[in-house]
């Protein structure tokens, strides 16, 4: 096996007593001594600090500035990027010719250029995909910066104590801010359903910044374990599990991310890979849908659990793509794909766990109300 890469916070994770695991080619903390459940609850009640430096940070520049980059990348992403405001960020995904999803990402308008954040496991492919697909655009992978997520209701007060001006940012605003930790690239966003920030910091300032944040009583370090249960409660997709090359954005219930201007009848309709299928599904619906699922009992229904329409007999009608115990909702929760006519909230299905079919109901996503500062 190839050597694992490390983030600039690796020594700090070890000092904090983290249990380290290989994740997307990186040596990452899955949990700290507090444990997954308490880390999760702490983040929702106060604030959590997550090292997400394994994710890819990429700067896109063109002679024509942001507008030229936006026009080019709209050929790869079915999202309105020309219409994205200055210092604003938007969620999107790279699609393939079959209308499947190659990766999901965040895209930011930083005035004269675009900044994107992609998944760790996909970043090499994403960079190659952008280099091949964006003619006239310089694709610069940023490899000398860490990325920290500070999430939770106390995040604003904590970060505002170190970096002036961040309290005024709204959900999905981005900023480039000078600070005692050198220049920080901050977005008011995250992957937990909580208010909070993602902070790109130079690698030499990453540990001092992390230590300064952790010095606050309100802040606890959060591992990848709690990050996963937080994002699942928030109804957010994990690439490679809930979405992949076999799922279209409409099947994945991500219609909200495709603005009108890119849909049929819009000024810049289509023009991205898989547009024929995706535009058609936006109008007529997809055959299956990603839904939230709440098992009726206490047993979690984990990834790959087959779903059936009835308690006995028949073939599976779908499957679970993410499943865990939700510490905040105090019960098991899953997401999965089911036929469109079974996707109504409250519809009863059966998940087969250890050979037994257990009742589960289609439930509203997110499982917890989002706590964003809009």
């Amino acid at each position, binding site marked *: 096996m190839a050597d694992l890469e490390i983030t600039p916070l690796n020594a700090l994770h070890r000092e904090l007593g983290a249990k380290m695991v290989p994740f997307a080619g990186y040596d990452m903390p899955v949990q700290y001594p507090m*444990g997954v459940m*308490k880390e999760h609850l702490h983040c929702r009640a106060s604030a959590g600090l997550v090292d997400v430096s394994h994710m890819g940070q990429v700067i896109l520049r063109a002679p024509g500035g942001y507008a030229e980059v936006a026009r080019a990348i709209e050929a790869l992403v079915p999202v309105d990027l020309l219409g994205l405001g200055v210092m604003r960020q938007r969620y999107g995904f790279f699609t393939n010719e079959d209308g499947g999803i190659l990766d999901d990402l965040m895209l930011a308008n930083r005035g004269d250029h675009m900044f994107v954040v992609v998944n760790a496991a996909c970043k090499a492919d994403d960079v190659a995909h952008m280099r091949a697909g964006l003619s006239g655009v310089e694709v610069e992978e940023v490899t000398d910066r860490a990325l920290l997520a500070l999430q939770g209701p106390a995040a604003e007060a904590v970060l505002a104590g170190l970096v002036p001006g961040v309290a005024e940012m709204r959900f999905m605003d981005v900023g480039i801010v000078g600070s005692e930790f050198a220049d920080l690239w901050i977005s008011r966003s995250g992957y937990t359903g909580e208010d909070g920030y993602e902070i790109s910091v130079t690698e030499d300032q990453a540990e001092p910044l992390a230590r300064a944040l952790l010095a606050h009583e309100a802040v606890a370090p959060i591992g990848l*374990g709690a990050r996963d249960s937080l994002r699942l409660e928030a109804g957010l997709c994990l690439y490679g599990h809930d979405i992949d090359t076999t799922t279209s954005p409409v099947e994945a219930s991500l219609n909200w991310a495709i603005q009108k201007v890119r849909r049929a009848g819009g000024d810049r309709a289509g023009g991205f890979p898989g547009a024929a299928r995706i535009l058609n599904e936006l109008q007529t619906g997809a055959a299956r849908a990603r839904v939230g699922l709440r098992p009726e009992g*206490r*047993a979690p229904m*984990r990834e790959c659990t087959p779903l059936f329409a009835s308690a006995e007999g028949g073939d599976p009608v779908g499957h679970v793509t993410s499943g*865990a*115990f939700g510490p905040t909702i105090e019960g*098991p929760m899953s997401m999965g794909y089911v036929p469109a006519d079974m996707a109504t909230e409250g519809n009863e299905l059966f998940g087969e766990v250890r050979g037994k079919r257990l009742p589960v109901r289609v439930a509203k996503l997110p499982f917890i109300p989002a706590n964003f500062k809009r």
Partner: protein
Amino acid sequence: MKFTEEHEWLRDEDGVIVVGITEHASEQLGDVVFVELPEVGKQVTKDDEIVVIESVKAASDILAPIDGEIVEVNETLTDEPGKVNDDPQGDAWFFKMKPSEPSQMDDLMDEAAYKKYIG
């Protein structure tokens, strides 16, 4: 108290054997969120999978440590699975069994041997 390589402990209470998982096992599992217990009266054979435990990380089984009959289960764990983390070697016992071959207990580790086993 006796211990198995599967990280169970067994305590003899006047011929009835109380079974749970060790402190070490509960730490390795992480937060326990679901416990499925066997039925009282069930006859089990050593290494039968009789209890399912799910933690925040994964599902695992507890195997019958010896042959015998399940005579009581700790129903409180069904509603409060977190007890397995709070007091694994005390209140959070899983089941009690009446051994059919009490001599099987002799093959298990004592506390010193178990401590050496987990290093």
